[in-house]
Structure formats: structure tokens, C-alpha cells
């Protein structure tokens, strides 16, 4: 097994035993990236020099630990990737947009600080300002799905998902506002977690939907995702919405099993329109849970199909406000030639933003504007309340809600870009978790026509333990842990 195939836990163990060093692991992934990045285009920036320096430091730390010195942080020396909407001090952060093409933050996101012992390889590609479900909205070209380079990796964290899927890094961070970690995880055959809102600090995450955004991990196994989640979560005084709740041992949770756990299946999730092969694979995973001792119950979430509409009102409203700071005055792109500040702002924003971003800003501005607030924005917030109540009721009957992560497997480039709504439909199962702030995970449960299918599990707020326990069980049954596609694009391993 090559070092680039190792998972997070496996690398940490190797470093501890001295079986491999961080520099060796780095060389392995860099070689892989060198071979295949041309096919995948997962990165917007690689920082080989910085990575080498960090790996060398970690070599020393682990060596010292083996001689009896202090134990370094669990993820010290492990290579990883950050989605390019997570600010990195001194390292360009573009959010996949021309608007920030040259922006170099003079500050780190809190999560970047928490992973300062790990080896940052670079920043990954994404839909511009996290708006999209395919990474086709990046201003710097799309990323390709490692399982089929003619298909999308999903979005908006397509680059991070592809990095982990292709073996460029054992873990990556993405952000999830309506499914942007879970959906690409599903399409790329990796594990992706959206934590409970408030578990992971948002300081340094360029905001899209402030009441919906969370940073979360991609990894090739549930236990790896748990390890990363532990490392990045916890209260942050710089984020007022950050939860003070302590984070329990998530590794232990992975081994808990599902005996006695009640798994809820919402009848509304299995209605028509769901690809039959996807349905089969998802039901197969559910049977694995049953075989492991879980009780399967039917639940009803009658308003769940309205979640998408509520999401598109709440998220775009917040986004229209969050993106207003991009006016060309203090940082970022400024369109040349404008004689006065108002036209400078208009030119800058019209040229700096792509179509999807402008569309959402327009929609968000509209729903907040005078006369429409009650009918649109406030209505959406009330529907959020209804959804929360329905989920609370369902959680009275079950401990985790299961279903497909997304209705289909990875689609081809250009397939969904005609009609704005067709792309939005990808998020239909994922958005509610964001609207009500509960944690949700996508775990691979098989392949359909050669493309990965993900099972989504959602649990009560702050109950990531249940998610890890159930996801680990599904993973044992599906045998997908650690899988990297054998052939990527024209090349093969």
C-alpha cells in the first residue's frame, strides 16, 4: 500500500511507530498530485514549499515523541487540503471567484489555526462563493470527478471531495450551507460530515448563509472523519454562534455499533423521481443497519419537500448581505476606469461576480426588500420553524434519519446548467439539516453504473456520536472504506 492510500488514523499510527515520516507521506501525495492533477483539477493553489517545511517540522516532532518526548497533536504531519473559502494567512484565498483573485488574507481561519501541525498542501477548487452543486461555477474552471472525469464531482466543495477521492490527501475541509460537503462526498465516494451548527468555528470562513454555514471534514473512512472533526471542533470566542458544548470522544463512537438504535426512514424521501438504483443501494445500507441490530421505523416529514424553497429564500437573503462587502474598495478586484465610486462598485461587482452569484444576490436582495420581507423572507423563517418541529417529532421516534444524500449519481458537465432550478434539486435531501442546524453525514454505500452513491444520516443537534456509530456500521457493510478509483481519466494508478 502506498502512503498516499493511507488514511488519517493510519498515517498517525505510522508516524508514531516510525514506520513512515511526514516528509515521506508528503512526497507520496505530491507525486500522485503531479501525475493526476491535470486530469482532476482539484486545486486552485498548491504550496509545495510551505508543505515541505511543515512536514520537516513534523518529522522532528514525531521523532522526539518516539524518544519519549511530548506527543504531538493527533494530526501532526498529516497532509490535507482546505477549500478556498477558508482564509489562510499569507496564502491566497479566492473563493473560486475573480472578485478575490489576488486576495491574500492577513489572518487565519480558526480551523486553519487548529490544524497548524498538519501539512497544508494547498487550497481546493469550489463553486464561486460556495454557490453551486457541481463546481462548474468556479471562475477558474471546473473540477472533474475522479470516478469519471466526464462527470462533475458535485459542489460547492468539489475540489476538496475530489482531492480525498483521488488520493491527493487523506483528509480535506469543505463548507456546507445546503449540502456542499455531503453532496460532493456522495458523488465522489468519500465520507463527508456537516457538523451541528456551532460545533466548528466559522471565523475565517467566507460567509455565504451565516445561519446555515458550517465547516466539516472529508475523509475516506468514518473514523478518519471523526478524528478530523475532533481536531477542528470546539468553542471559539471569535465566533458568537460557536457552541460552548464540550466535544465527546468521537473515535469511541465509531466502534459503538447500532444495537438498539432506531433508524427513521421518511416516507417522503422515497417518492417518485428517485433513481431506482440509488434507492436500492440506500435500502441495502439500511438493511446493514438492521442486521447490526438497529430498528427501522417509518417516519413522516410532511414539509420536507418545502425545505428547498425555504432554503433558497433564507440563504440568498443572507448571501446578498454577506457579499455586499465585495465592492472593490479595501481588497479584491476593482474594475478599472470608473470615474465615481457608485459606478466603480457597479462595474466591479458586475465583472467580478459570475452569473450564479449575481442571480442569488438579486434574489436575496428582492426577498429582503421593502414590501416583500413578510411574504418571502419571514415566511421562509417560519417554514424553518415548522421543519424543526417536524424533525423534533420524528426524533421522538428515532435516533437517526436515513435516506439518499442526493437523488442521483454524478451527472455530466453542462447537464444541469440550463435551468436554474434543475441544479438546485440536487440539494433536496441535504438542505433541511442546514435549515435547522442538525448534524448530517454522507457515507458511501455502493456504486451505480460505476459511480458512487451516498447514504445520508441525520441526527439530533450535538449528537454526532450517533452519526459516527451508524455511518461506521454502514461502512463495514458496504466495504467502501479507503477506496480510491483505480483509473482516473486517461491515467491509471
Amino acid at each position, binding site marked *: 500500500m502506498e502512503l498516499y492510500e493511507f488514511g488519517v488514523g493510519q498515517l498517525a499510527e505510522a508516524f508514531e511507530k516510525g514506520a513512515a515520516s511526514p516528509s515521506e507521506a508528503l512526497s507520496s501525495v505530491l507525486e500522485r498530485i503531479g501525475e493526476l492533477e491535470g486530469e482532476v483539477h482539484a486545486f486552485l493553489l498548491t504550496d509545495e514549499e510551505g508543505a515541505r517545511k511543515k512536514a520537516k517540522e513534523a518529522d522532528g516532532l514525531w521523532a522526539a515523541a518516539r524518544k519519549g518526548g511530548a506527543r504531538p497533536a493527533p494530526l501532526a504531519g498529516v497532509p490535507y487540503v482546505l477549500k478556498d473559502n477558508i482564509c489562510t494567512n499569507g496564502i491566497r484565498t479566492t473563493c473560486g471567484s475573480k472578485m478575490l483573485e489576488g486576495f491574500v488574507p492577513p489572518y487565519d481561519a480558526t480551523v486553519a489555526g487548529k490544524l497548524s501541525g498538519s501539512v497544508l498542501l494547498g487550497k481546493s477548487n469550489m463553486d464561486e462563493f460556495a454557490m453551486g452543486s457541481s463546481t462548474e461555477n468556479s471562475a477558474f474552471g471546473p473540477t472533474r470527478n475522479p470516478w469519471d472525469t466526464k462527470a462533475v464531482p458535485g459542489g460547492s466543495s468539489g475540489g476538496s471531495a475530489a482531492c480525498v477521492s483521488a488520493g491527493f490527501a487523506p483528509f480535506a475541509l469543505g463548507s456546507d450551507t445546503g449540502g456542499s460537503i455531503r453532496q460532493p462526498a456522495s458523488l465522489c465516494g468519500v465520507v463527508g460530515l456537516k457538523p451541528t451548527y456551532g460545533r466548528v468555528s466559522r471565523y475565517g470562513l467566507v460567509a455565504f448563509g451565516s445561519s446555515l454555514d458550517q465547516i466539516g471534514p472529508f475523509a475516506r473512512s468514518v473514523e478518519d472523519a471523526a478524528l478530523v472533526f475532533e481536531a477542528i471542533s470546539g468553542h471559539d470566542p471569535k465566533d458568537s454562534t460557536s457552541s460552548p458544548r464540550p466535544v465527546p470522544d468521537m473515535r469511541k463512537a465509531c466502534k459503538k455499533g447500532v444495537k438498539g438504535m432506531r433508524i427513521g426512514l421518511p416516507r417522503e424521501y422515497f417518492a417518485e423521481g428517485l433513481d431506482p438504483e440509488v434507492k436500492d443501494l440506500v435500502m441495502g445500507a439500511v438493511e446493514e443497519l438492521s442486521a447490526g441490530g438497529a430498528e427501522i421505523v417509518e417516519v413522516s416529514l410532511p414539509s420536507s419537500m418545502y425545505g428547498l424553497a425555504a432554503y433558497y429564500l433564507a440563504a440568498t437573503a443572507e448571501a446578498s448581505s454577506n457579499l455586499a462587502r465585495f465592492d472593490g474598495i*479595501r481588497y479584491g478586484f476593482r474594475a478599472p476606469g470608473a470615474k465615481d465610486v457608485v459606478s466603480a462598485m457597479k462595474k466591479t461587482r458586475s465583472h467580478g461576480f459570475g452569473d450564479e452569484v449575481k442571480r442569488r444576490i438579486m434574489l436575496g436582495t428582492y426577498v429582503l426588500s421593502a414590501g416583500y420581507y413578510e411574504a418571502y423572507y419571514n415566511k421562509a423563517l*417560519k417554514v424553518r420553524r415548522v421543519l424543526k418541529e417536524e424533525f423534533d417529532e420524528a426524533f421522538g421516534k428515532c435516533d437517526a434519519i436515513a435516506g439518499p444524500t442526493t437523488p442521483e449519481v454524478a451527472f455530466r458537465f453542462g447537464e444541469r446548467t440550463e435551468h436554474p432550478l434543475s441544479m438546485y434539486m440536487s440539494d433536496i435531501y441535504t438542505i433541511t439539516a442546514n435549515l435547522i442546524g442538525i448534524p448530517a453525514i454522507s457515507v458511501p454505500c455502493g456504486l451505480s453504473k460505476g459511480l458512487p452513491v451516498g447514504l445520508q444520516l441525520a441526527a439530533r443537534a450535538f449528537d454526532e456520536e450517533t452519526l459516527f456509530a451508524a455511518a461506521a456500521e454502514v461502512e463495514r457493510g458496504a466495504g467502501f472504506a479507503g477506496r480510491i478509483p483505480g483509473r482516473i481519466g486517461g491515467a491509471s494508478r
Partner: protein
Amino acid sequence: MGISRDEVMRIAELARLEFGEEDAARYALELDLILGYVAKLEEVDTEGKKPLTHAQELVNVMRQDEPVQGLSQDQALMNAPARKGEFFLVPRIMDNSDED
């Protein structure tokens, strides 16, 4: 329903975006489609429901009034598209009608 061209221009103005006629028409159409879809929300009974603005029930998160070192002047200005000495530079501000 139908969003008029005038509405689109009003919103564009509020959002500091500018469009040519063709684009304005396209946006009007696309926004209409999306608004048509979200009109479904009227089917949900939200009578007496409090709007959910925050996912958690946190209250009273505050910090002490203690100064903390910020950025140096150079760090603050280093990403500025236009700079004049110690200041950010902007083109002519036509009137103070936006000032409040």
C-alpha cells in the same frame, strides 16, 4: 406574478449590479422561475409560528472591553486596489445621498 424590467433594475441598483437589456430580461425570467417555485411555501401553514433566525438557543454572548492588537497599517492596506499613503483611495463620491 412576473417581475417587471423596472423591478429588476431597482433591485440591481440596490445590489450595485448593472445589466444590459438582454441580461436584465434574462434575470427577470430566471427570478420569475425561482419565485414561482418558492411560491409553493404559501401551502405551508405557518400560523403562529415564530421565525427561526438562529439554529441554536444561545443568548448573551459578549466579550470584555479589553483592547486587542489588530493589524498594522501595512497589513490593513496591503490588499487595497488603490491606496494613497496611509489611506484607502476611492474615486469621486458624487453626493452624500447614501450617507446616513
